[in-house]
Every structure is written in C-alpha cells, then in structure tokens.
C-alpha cells in the first residue's frame, strides 16, 4: 500500500505493538533535554534506581532560563541558577553530554540540534518542549513531550504512541513575487486559516514547490510553528538542500557513512497515491506580511488591513467570539484600527522560530544605516553561540548595535520570559517568537507575532509598517 513519509518513519521505529490497544512502542533515535522540563524526570529515575538507557543518544543544553547578558557574571536569579545547576549535576550523574552556558555550542535546543548535525532525516526525535516540531524540516518525526515522557525515554529510549492522522498542506507559488515574503508569514497565514486546533491529532506534511524552494532555516520556521496549529509534528521530505545542509556538520555522519546515509535518506518520501486524512492548500502568491492582533496565533491579519471585529473573526462560532472579545480587551485594541497605526514599545528578534543566521540577515536589511525609534527598546538574541559568531563575522552585530538594538547572548529569552528579559505590564511588542498568549512575554505584556523583517522595520518606524512599501 502507498505510504506517506510519516507512515514510513513510524513503521521503521515500531518496537512492539499490542493488538488490544491503539498504542505502539516506538524507538527514539534522539532525545534533547533542557533545564526546565527535566529535573522531575531525573528525580524519578533516582527514586526508582533506574539508569539512562542510551546516554549516547541524549543531548542537553541550557536555554530557557539563561540570562542573555554578560556570561562571565553570576546568574542573579537564584531559582534559575539552581535549575541550571541541577541539569549540570544530572548530566554528570547519568553520563549525558551537556552544552553548558559557557560552551561554544550552547544555544536554543531547536537551533543547536540541526546546526550541529544531530538532527538527521528519518529519525525519531523528542524533547520536553513543544517546539520540537522544528526538526521535522529534515524529514524526521520530531515532537514535544511532557516530563513523564522525558523520564520514560530516558529509562527506555522508547515511547508509547498512538498513530496520528496524515495531514497534507500544499504550498504553491510564491516564487515570482515582487516582494519576497518570509516563511514566518506563510506559517502564520496557515494557522490563521486552519486555526489553533486545525492540526490536532495530525502530523502535517508540507508539500509543494514553495517549500522545496526554501532553505533549511526557512523550512524550520514553518515546521516550528506546526504546534501552534495543534499538530505535534510537521514534516518536509528531505532533499538535496537537506543533505547539503547536513554535510560536514560537527556531529553529522562522516565521509563514506554520510554518503551511504544520503542514499537511504533519498527513499524518505511519500509514495505516489499515498492517502492523507486531510488536505489543505494555499497559494503563496500575493500573500501580505502577517501580524497577530490577539492572544493566540490564529488571530492573525494582513499588515495592510485593520483589526477585525469579534463577529468578523468568529464567523458564527460563539466560543471564538468570546475569545476575540477577551483578546481585544487584553490587547487594548479596537476593531477597525489599521495595523499600521499600532505603535510598539519593544521589539524582540529571537527564539527557536526566528533566531538563525538567515533571520538575522533578513532583519538587518531593514536596519542598515537607520536608527531605532526613540520610543522603542529593541533587542536581538541570536539562537546559538554559533549563530552569534557567524553573524558577527558578517558584521551584523555592528549593524544592529549602531542602529540602537541590544545584541545579546543566546537563549530563549523574551519568547517566554523565564529569564530577566520580560515585557512590563501594558508594553506592546513586535516579536519574532511563536506565541502571543496572555502574559507569555511578561504579565500584562502585549505580543504581536511577525517576521524578522517586519519586527526590525517596526523597531525603526516605532510602529508596524508594510515592509513591501517600506524597504
């Protein structure tokens, strides 16, 4: 029977299935660990006198909690410091490789996995973090898990899973646009159209000439936010772009083994005639830059339009209408207000969605030779030490610093504000991150999700601008 890529990866990893249940035991090839969702899992191992089955397939880094200021200074927040120290101790005790706060490979777990060549096509990859969907850009089945599951994978290198549905999203066009749009605009537009539960219970495979035309970094942005559409995983068929990205990375298989692997990886594609439970397609041509106006990522609108009324947004769904009313109140916005009339107080360029080198280059294009608006506080937080080093080689740090941006050390930072980088109540932020939930970037803070180019332009203009007319 014709199979999808997801079906194939699933079948390749089944260790055991039980007729009486929908659940199968799947082998996990790669386990990424960070400081926030792991301490209780390691405690569980200790209490039950269990070991880590495959420390050699497990990698840890610190990202959620770490300050983005000078790394030679001690961490002021004692609770964060303890959590970071706890991960160090756990990795030492259980023999796990840790990229600690001073490591040249430290960074956001979903940035460093790919850039170190740890994320490989056809693998199963998990992490106690919902944005693990990022790694699906390589044709790997990658998804976020809870702490109990982290403990289960540490102890057994396996997980009990119910097979998801196959969801195909076809992205056409976008190649001959006058104004190139960001892949962030594309994924925001998808979420806007299918909703935050549109992908629930499904693995999304992104297809079409648009996705094939993208670099790995741009594909990662799309897969990263699959979870915001409710899908645990996103997938892109690996191709030459994927293989060339991985060739020669620090931990990629070497020379002959790499070529052998590429031969195997070339078989990782959905068969002709494979059946999908759901199909959705969008045309990228003429897509406008996207801006979120509410408190979930489906509350998104074109930059050249106005805040919708709750009725326009909800289209007859009472629950959604109530959500929209609540969101407008929280965001302090009125229906009818043009997006380009909304001024911002803060700009955040960073996160596992948009803190890779290409994102920073995209943002720098709007900044070169300009100054950040006097009403705006703006910061750039590279996704990893390696991204930071590469960006500095290109002189991007100087472009941002000269314009008035802060240039920080790598971490999750203001995407979720677990470190000191937070919004104050009432502050409005143009952010390249992935969630605009209430209080996400700081209690009372108001988040608008946008692409790196849109965020950078907002920093300069002090308000949202349509970058198609502006750059």
């Amino acid at each position, binding site marked *: 029977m014709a199979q999808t890529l997801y079906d194939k990866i699933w079948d390749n990893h089944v*260790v055991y299935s039980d007729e009486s249940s929908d659940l199968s*035991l799947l*082998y996990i090839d790669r386990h990424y660990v960070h400081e926030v969702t792991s301490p209780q899992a390691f405690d*569980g191992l200790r209490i039950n006198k269990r070991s880590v089955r495959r420390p050699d397939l497990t*990698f840890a880094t610190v990202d959620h909690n770490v300050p983005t200021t000078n790394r030679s200074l001690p961490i002021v927040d004692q609770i964060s410091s303890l959590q970071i120290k706890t991960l160090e101790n756990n990795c030492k005790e259980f023999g796990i490789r840790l990229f600690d706060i001073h490591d040249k490979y430290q960074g956001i777990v979903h940035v460093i996995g790919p850039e170190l060549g*740890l994320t490989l096509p056809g*693998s199963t990859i998990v992490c106690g973090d919902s944005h693990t969907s990022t790694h699906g850009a390589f044709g790997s089945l990658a998804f976020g898990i809870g702490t109990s*599951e982290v403990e289960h994978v540490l102890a057994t290198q396996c997980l009990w899973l119910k097979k998801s549905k196959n969801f195909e999203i076809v992205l056409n066009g976008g190649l001959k646009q006058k104004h190139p749009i960001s892949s962030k605009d594309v994924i925001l537009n998808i979420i806007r159209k299918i909703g935050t539960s549109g992908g*629930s219970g499904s693995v999304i495979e992104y297809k079409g000439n648009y996705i094939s035309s993208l670099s790995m970094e741009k594909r990662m942005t799309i897969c990263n936010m699959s979870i915001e559409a409710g899908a645990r995983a996103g997938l892109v068929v690996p191709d030459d772009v994927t293989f060339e990205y991985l060739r020669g990375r620090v931990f990629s298989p070497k020379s002959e083994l790499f070529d052998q692997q590429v031969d195997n990886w070339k078989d990782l594609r959905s068969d002709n005639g494979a059946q999908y439970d759901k199909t959705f397609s969008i045309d990228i041509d003429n897509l406008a830059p996207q801006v979120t106006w509410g408190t979930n990522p489906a509350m998104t609108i074109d930059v050249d339009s106005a805040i919708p009324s709750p009725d326009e947004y909800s289209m007859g769904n009472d629950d959604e209408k109530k959500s929209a009313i609540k969101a407008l109140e929280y965001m302090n916005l009125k229906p009818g207000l043009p997006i380009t009339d909304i001024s911002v107080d803060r700009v955040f360029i960073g996160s596992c969605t948009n803190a890779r080198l290409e994102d920073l280059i995209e943002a720098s294009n709007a900044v070169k030779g300009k100054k950040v608006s006097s009403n705006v506080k703006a910061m750039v937080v590279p996704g990893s030490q390696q991204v930071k080093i590469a960006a500095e080689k290109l002189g991007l740090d100087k472009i941002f610093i000269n314009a008035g941006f802060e240039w920080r050390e790598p971490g999750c930072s203001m995407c979720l504000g677990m470190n000191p980088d937070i919004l104050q109540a009432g502050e409005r932020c143009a952010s390249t991150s992935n969630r605009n939930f209430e209080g996400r970037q700081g209690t*009372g803070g108001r988040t608008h999700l946008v692409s790196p180019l849109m965020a950078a332009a907002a920093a300069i203009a002090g308000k949202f601008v349509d970058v198609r007319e502006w750059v």
Partner: protein
Amino acid sequence: MLENGSKFDLLQIKITGVIMEPFKNLTSKVVPLDIANIDTDQIIPKQFLKLLGKTGYGEYLFFNWRYDNQGTPLENFVLNSPLYSGRQILLTRENFGIGSSREHAVWALKDYGFKVILGVSFADIFYNNCFKNGILVIKMDKNIIEDFFTTTINENFEIDLIRQQVRINSKAFGFDIDPTLKSYLVNGLDEISKTLELASHIKKYEDKNKVSVESKSMI
C-alpha cells in the same frame, strides 16, 4: 502506604509524585471555566516552571486570571468563588491545554484538587500528560458540553470510569477512552515498569537497526 506518614513516603510525594494512585469513581459538582482555547501558559505561567518538584503548584493555578498584581484574589474568577470551592471536576470548552508541553500545567490542576477534566477537545500533549498523572480527561460533543454549562453546573456529576459514563441525576452520558490509558488509570500502573518488561524487544530493535542507531551514537 500514603496514610502512615512515614518520612520516606512523604519525601517521595514531595520530590517526585511518582506514586500513581488508582483512579476511583467520584461524585462532584463542576467548576465551569467558560473559555475556549485555553493555553498552558494561562494554566501555569512561566515563573513557576523554575521549581524542581511536582507538587505545590496548586496555589499558582491560573495565576494571572486568579490574582491581581498585588496577589489579591480576583472576585470574578471562578476558582475564587466560594460556590465552587472543593469541586473536583473542571468543565471547559474546546481546545483546552494548547501551546507549551509543560507538565507543570497538569501538576497544578492535580495539586489544586481536580481529578477529572471535561470538555469538547484537548491539545494532544496536554491530553497525554494528564493520563500520566492520573487525571481523567473526558471528551464530549459540543452540544452536550453546552448543555452542562447551561443547565447542570450545580448538579452532581457521577464519574464512572469502568463503565465509561458520566451520570447526572439518572441520565447517563457515555464517553470513549483508549483501553490502555483506561487500564493505567484503573490500576494506577507505572508505565515505565511495563515498558521495561519489554526490554528484550528494545534490545532486539537496537540489534536489528544497529547501523542506524549507532550512527547517531555520540559517546
């Protein structure tokens, strides 16, 4: 085991909460949380994810909706209404638990005293996390949930996991649940122990896929 108060048991609960008690049928009224698309950032905000245990999160549940910035309880939030105190069932709408995978959200609901969550639909990761912690999640049709919100908020809900029924007065509403998840709840099973019994299958998989697995080994 939990009642004897020995130091060892208390320590276990505090640090890990690994003891999965079997789910017992219960009767309770519901706490109506009439909002759709609730994300886990609302259930437990980021600042509480720095803690290292599995317990003690209950007082921070729905923190930003429950308290003002001085820490004073907000009167209009359901958890602060004396009418609803002590109720063990959370009634919600569609798409509950979206966003972050943080299991702290489930630990907070459990620590607060919720044993059952009843709604139209749930985010995948959140749904799994609940069952790992002994919380029963029940999905029901939108019109039935609507009915509960409008007419039965102050009725007793009898939750019968074995028969997969919610009974209100004499009316029974059936629900679906995966048989494996059900058996975990009914027996309070530790999933890891069950998997470790399959160690020979795991070894066999690793041997059969040696090239693929070893090519990813990094030590």
